[in-house]
């Protein structure tokens, strides 16, 4: 296994070294103390086998004691302990499995497309860049859909006091995936990175911290408060909420909140005309803010500009309007102090004054985004973004560590190892395996890092290592093992070996599971594995008394050695001689053996014997010479065959005495009779051996057969002459 838990520094697969609260599992073994020894072993998945053994005290070894306490007799017991699922409590195990299932088709499709492109381009992969980018983007959006679909934003009832939606189904996993997608998969978005981050924060701001306040949590609190508030503009929280929303660019919320201002009330409009004019002017400025992005989702405010030139022009014009309003004389006429102060704070934010931005954000990510919106709205290189992030962290150091920001810093710092380590730490192997596809799609450096074969990993690449780890996780659960082959098949070095092992280790008790296993063998053309699995299944069924099933699997596996062995045991079951009645129940088994004699091994005797019996029966009913001749032929075949057990020789011959004494003509030739006589002689010698199992036939059977054969020989010689 990769990594040793004792030394996190050396681990190949990063694991969390943080110490969680220990979980206590109580083992109900029901044994009387003292427990002498406890063995703990891994079973499948997260199941532990705990074996508790107790030492027998001398007082208990007496028989009386045991009979009085029957439960005390148990010397030990094995208990299964189910360990609870890992650190990711946000997503249930069933949901995790659902994600695992859903990502299989997307992953497999991407792999096959990659292989197809590789084959088509003969290693000149670069010529298919655009096609490949499209495929990766499709893959990424398929996975993102799986992690949770975004709800349609419009609600049927438009409540003016409902402006922010509580976090419902958004998970950190989806937030992380979206973040990785923005930077690695979506090539079109590269030109609009800052705006993409604004959108990302709008979706996931509430996830940044569970304990510290964020813009989202503050707005949710404000929404709750507003329900009971009559005069909103008197409340400082109202103005703070608007400023917070504006700082992170949630313009629709800002405008919605501004329109709740008391001066819009019809009965107050006359008295507060100037005040209302100022509020409205700010609302109009907010809703016409120029944004450097191709489009906006429905319901979002702002004016989009695709090119930098257009944007700069619009931006300068807009800033001019903001400045003009800031220096306007109307502020003096505004009678409501909170309103004028609150609105001017909004203008300062729009003008990008650092103090106001800093005061209107909580988390450093929020401050970061506000910089993009109001201070430096143009795309800068990753390097510039990284140093800006560092500056924001200095201004607002986060008291608690968040994995999401860790991933973001890794991405900005162009440090693939950090991104992978964070993904692995927080989200486990699923995230790493699927995110690697995005990391390597564009980035040459990351591709080299992840695809390079490493000596210390046993000659495999980091990418393969993570896939192997993920496949191990999948194969440890009885519901997900069937999807592990998809990932193992994408591992060039060690995948096939592990796949063989996985298929080989599946339980064979039930044929339905076995057939699913064999189906995977067929898909990956692993015939040797399917043969061994069938052999194991055959022996298992045979041992458990399902002889037909056992023989079926051994026949499918073409395992003649075991079939021959089994044949001997089977003949023991048949008994010393085969009576017609007892043989009836073997009919079904003989049907199973089929007509292809070769595949049955030693069991072909049963087949021939049945044929012989049938022809003998026919002869007794209507005695034609050809029928009689035929049954004698099958007798000779049977006697010749090495698979016919010796102990059946005499009963076979005895059964056919009537035919040997056929009145009209001898049915056997001289050589055939000689063969049978030789066999009889062999039998007579064998009888002298101590291990010979005698038949239940009458003692004179041997002599009657010998006599019949001798007579037949004489008649045959005469016939030949």
């Amino acid at each position, binding site marked *: 296994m990769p990594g040793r838990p004792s030394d996190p520094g050396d681990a190949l697969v990063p694991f969390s070294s943080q110490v969680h609260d220990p979980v206590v599992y109580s083992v109900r073994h029901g044994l009387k103390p003292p427990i002498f020894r406890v063995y703990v072993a891994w079973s499948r998945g997260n199941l532990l086998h705990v074996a508790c053994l107790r030492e027998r005290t001398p007082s208990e070894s007496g028989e009386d004691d045991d009979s009085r306490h029957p439960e005390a007799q148990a010397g030990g017991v094995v208990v299964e302990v*189910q360990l609870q699922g890992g650190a990711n409590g946000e997503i*249930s*195990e*069933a*949901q995790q*499995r*659902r994600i695992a*299932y859903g990502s*299989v*088709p997307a992953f*497999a499709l991407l792999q096959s497309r990659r292989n197809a492109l590789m084959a088509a381009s003969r290693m000149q992969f670069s010529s298919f860049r655009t096609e490949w980018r499209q495929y990766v983007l499709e893959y990424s959006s398929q996975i993102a859909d799986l992690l949770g679909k975004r709800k349609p934003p419009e609600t*049927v009832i438009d409540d003016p006091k409902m402006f922010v939606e509580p976090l419902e189904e958004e998970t950190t996993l989806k937030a992380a995936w979206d973040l990785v997608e923005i930077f690695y998969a979506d090539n079109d978005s590269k030109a609009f990175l800052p705006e993409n981050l604004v959108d990302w924060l709008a979706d996931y701001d509430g996830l940044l911290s569970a304990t510290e306040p964020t813009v989202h949590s503050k707005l949710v609190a404000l929404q709750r408060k507003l329900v009971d508030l009559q005069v909103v503009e008197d409340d400082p929280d109202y103005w703070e909420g608007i400023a917070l929303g504006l700082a992170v660019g949630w313009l629709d919320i800002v405008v919605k909140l501004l329109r709740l201002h008391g001066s819009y009330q019809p009965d107050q409009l006359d008295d507060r005309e100037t005040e209302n004019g100022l509020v409205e002017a700010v609302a109009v400025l907010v809703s016409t803010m120029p944004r450097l992005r191709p489009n906006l989702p429905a319901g979002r405010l702002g004016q989009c500009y695709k090119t930098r030139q257009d944007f700069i022009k619009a931006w300068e014009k807009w800033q001019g309007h903001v400045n003009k309003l800031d220096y306007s004389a109307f502020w003096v006429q505004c009678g409501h102090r909170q309103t004028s102060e609150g609105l001017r704070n909004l203008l300062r934010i729009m003008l990008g004054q650092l103090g106001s931005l800093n005061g209107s954000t909580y988390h450093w990510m929020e401050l970061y985004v506000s910089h993009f919106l109001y201070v430096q709205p143009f795309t800068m290189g990753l390097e510039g973004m990284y140093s800006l992030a560092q500056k924001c962290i200095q201004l607002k150091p986060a008291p608690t560590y968040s994995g999401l920001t860790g991933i973001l810093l890794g991405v900005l710092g162009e440090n693939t190892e950090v991104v992978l380590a964070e993904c692995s730490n927080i989200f486990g192997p699923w995230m790493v395996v699927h995110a690697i596809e995005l990391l390597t799609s564009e980035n040459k450096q990351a591709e080299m890092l992840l695809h390079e074969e490493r000596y210390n990993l046993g000659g495999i690449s980091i990418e393969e290592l993570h896939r192997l780890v993920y496949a191990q996780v999948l194969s440890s*659960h*009885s*519901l997900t093992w*069937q999807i592990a082959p998809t990932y193992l098949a994408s591992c060039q070095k060690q995948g096939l070996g592990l796949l063989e092992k996985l298929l080989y280790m599946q339980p064979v008790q*039930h*044929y339905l599971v076995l*057939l*699913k296993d064999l*189906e995977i063998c*067929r898909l990956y053309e692993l015939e040797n594995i399917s043969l061994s699995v069938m052999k194991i299944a055959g022996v298992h*069924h045979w041992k*458990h*008394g*399902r*002889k*037909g*099933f056992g023989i*079926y699997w051994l*026949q*499918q596996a073409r395992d003649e050695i075991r079939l021959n062995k089994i044949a001997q045991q089977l003949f023991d079951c048949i008994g010393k001689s085969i009576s017609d009645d007892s043989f*009836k*129940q*073997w*009919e*079904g*088994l003989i*049907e*199973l053996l*089929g*007509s*292809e004699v070769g595949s049955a091994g030693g069991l072909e005797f049963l087949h021939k014997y049945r044929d012989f019996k049938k022809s003998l029966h026919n002869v007794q009913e209507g005695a034609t010479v050809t029928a009689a001749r035929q049954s004698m032929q099958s007798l000779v075949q049977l006697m010749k065959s090495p698979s016919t057990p010796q102990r059946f020789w005499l009963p076979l011959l005895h059964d056919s005495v009537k035919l040997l004494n056929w009145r009209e003509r001898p049915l056997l030739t001289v050589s055939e009779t000689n063969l049978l006589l030789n066999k009889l002689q062999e039998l007579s010698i064998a009888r002298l051996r101590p291990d010979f199992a005698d038949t239940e036939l009458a003692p004179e059977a041997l002599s009657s057969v010998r006599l019949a054969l001798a007579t037949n020989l004489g008649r045959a010689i005469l016939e030949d002459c």
Partner: protein
Amino acid sequence: MAGGGGDLVVHRFPQSKAVDSVRWLPAVSAFDRFVAAAVHDPDSGSSALEVHALELIQQGEESDALDLLPRDSWSSASRISALRCSNVPAEPLTVALSTFAGSLHFLFVDPVEGTIESELSPVAGERWLHSGPISAVDLQPEGRECVSVGQDGRVNLVSVAEGSMEHRRVHDARGLVSYTAVRWGSSVEFATGGLAFGLQWWDQRKPGGPVSHLKGDSFQGMASGIVHSIDVHPSRKHICLAGGSSGAVFAWDLRWQKQPVLLSGAGLGQQRQSPCESEVWEIQYDSLIQTGFSSTPSAKILPVMICSEDGVLAVLEQGKDPIELLAEPCAVNAFDIDGRNPSDVVCSLEWEAIALLMRPRDSSAF
């Protein structure tokens, strides 16, 4: 209801545990429709029979969504291996289920509420019908008599009367033969299937073993396999339809015993494409497509629906190309066609989900 016209509508309901089998419960009214599902949760090691109600949920003005809501459940000590429901609406409905441990249980379900009212299980201490797993069971339409077969080679008849079970062993092959499928043909006859594509026809009036056999090696050029499912059409009792390994679907006409008709499978040759190549887990006559039913010669095989390990749910018709209804990335383990509304099909998917298909009623749309 949705899907009354136009295209095929597929709803998927994730379940968070393995769904081994699904069956429609015969509906008493058009509004109460129930699905019985045999589920297994390997994490807790628990198995259960769950009754789900199919409900229409109003969602705005345009779209109505269907949902599958759990109504009742009965927990089983062992994983459920086979599940059958009586197909005549009655009070109460009978559900027969068998387990991997070899026990057979009857549950009685209220047809209006969908709740499990009572159960009949083997008395503790009594010897079980089978040693080892029961591979298949089948109920008579009115749910009074059940036949069960197992890998141990036993064939048992169990009749339910007045709160008690009575069982009778029809045959015991003592493990020399294993049976993997069973289906009633009439009130006294039934068909069983087993290894090497073997089929047997039994008549209770003629005890002492099967009345006739179909030998599996009658197919040319086809690998040997296991029969997983059998169906006998009530109007064509002489034809026994079977599905099994390597995508094989074949019909065995009792009147011409030597030559089974292959509908699908590797032995089909080049003439037509086989819809699947892996295990065919279940087959059922598709009662939706019945073009010119009375005029079809009795030797022609009626349309049949199959589901398979490679994720195909398809309808096969003799001499025509198969119609693929579903092509899932995972196996379709079982399905059931609603007797009342043959356009609706429920199926269980390997990836812990139940899928509901609503086909357009007009079969000519295909």
